[in-house]
């Protein structure tokens, strides 16, 4: 069993209006030194696969096909082996 974490962010060329709004709010709270606030999604998956390479391939395929829209978003995938749960 493998665990995958997928980070989906709006492409840098696209204005992130949500991030901008949070940034303005932070400024009004007095955090004047905060900038470039961007908001994205963090998705976790468990994947059954033969090996790490296969799990990474599946995670990337899913990210490209479903979890992100390449017109507006970029994604990053990290996959690691899930720790074996101790027998109860």
């Amino acid at each position, binding site marked *: 069993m493998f665990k995958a974490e997928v980070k989906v962010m709006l492409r840098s060329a696209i204005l992130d*209006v949500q991030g901008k709004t949070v940034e303005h709010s932070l400024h009004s709270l007095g955090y004047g030194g905060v900038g470039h606030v961007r908001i994205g999604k963090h998705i976790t998956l468990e994947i059954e696969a033969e090996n790490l390479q296969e799990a990474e391939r599946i995670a990337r395929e899913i990210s490209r096909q*479903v979890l992100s829209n390449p017109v*507006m978003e970029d994604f990053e995938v990290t996959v690691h082996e899930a720790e074996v749960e101790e027998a109860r």
Partner: protein
Amino acid sequence: MKIGVVVFPGSNCDHDAYYALKHEIGVDTTFLFHKEHDLQDVDAIVLPGGFSYGDYLRCGAIARFSPIMREVVKFAQSGGPVIGICNGFQILCEAGLLPGALLRNRDLRFISKHIHIRVVNNRTIFTGELQDGEILRIPVAHGEGNYHADADVLQQLHAEGRIVFQYCDPQGNVTEEANPNGSQFNIAGIVNAKGNVLGMMPHPERACSPLLGSTDGLGIFRSIVRSLEIVAA
């Protein structure tokens, strides 16, 4: 002649589209359920507005993979007329039947009001009964209607006359002030390269009766029916 209106979980303009087609236009209309694989021999398909699958992940992202959409994609690829309204437009973009994507509105607000759009190209099956430059007063109701595409795609849409509707002021001027959501080029509706798939954010089905405050949406449905009659003749 029969027109199908697709029903996804969370569609909320399906009955409006059905009513407009069946009772205002007078054409045989049927619902197509999202889990079905059978298009029931319809001659045109409407992807209605709403919040399919709760707009989870991204607007239209889950609907795009529903069983009926596999058939809709095949139908569209073989030249069948498909009109996606609001959420339907978002689904068409997610499905790759139209280029670009619809981002969060520039001002973050959900916008629900009557706006004006200008007919930029009346040489499509969706606008044949309208005039170039005609101004339609039609409602919008969306949170993600900010049309975005890469510069080369926009250039192509423009050059090929595929920008069909643009947001404008009541006099027909395409201005930044008249742009409700930040869409590039004030884009309110586009067609695919073949011209048989239209996506638009405004709701023509909500402007089909004097009771609703406008009948400006009728021309779009009349154009589709007229084009089908010509094909049948």
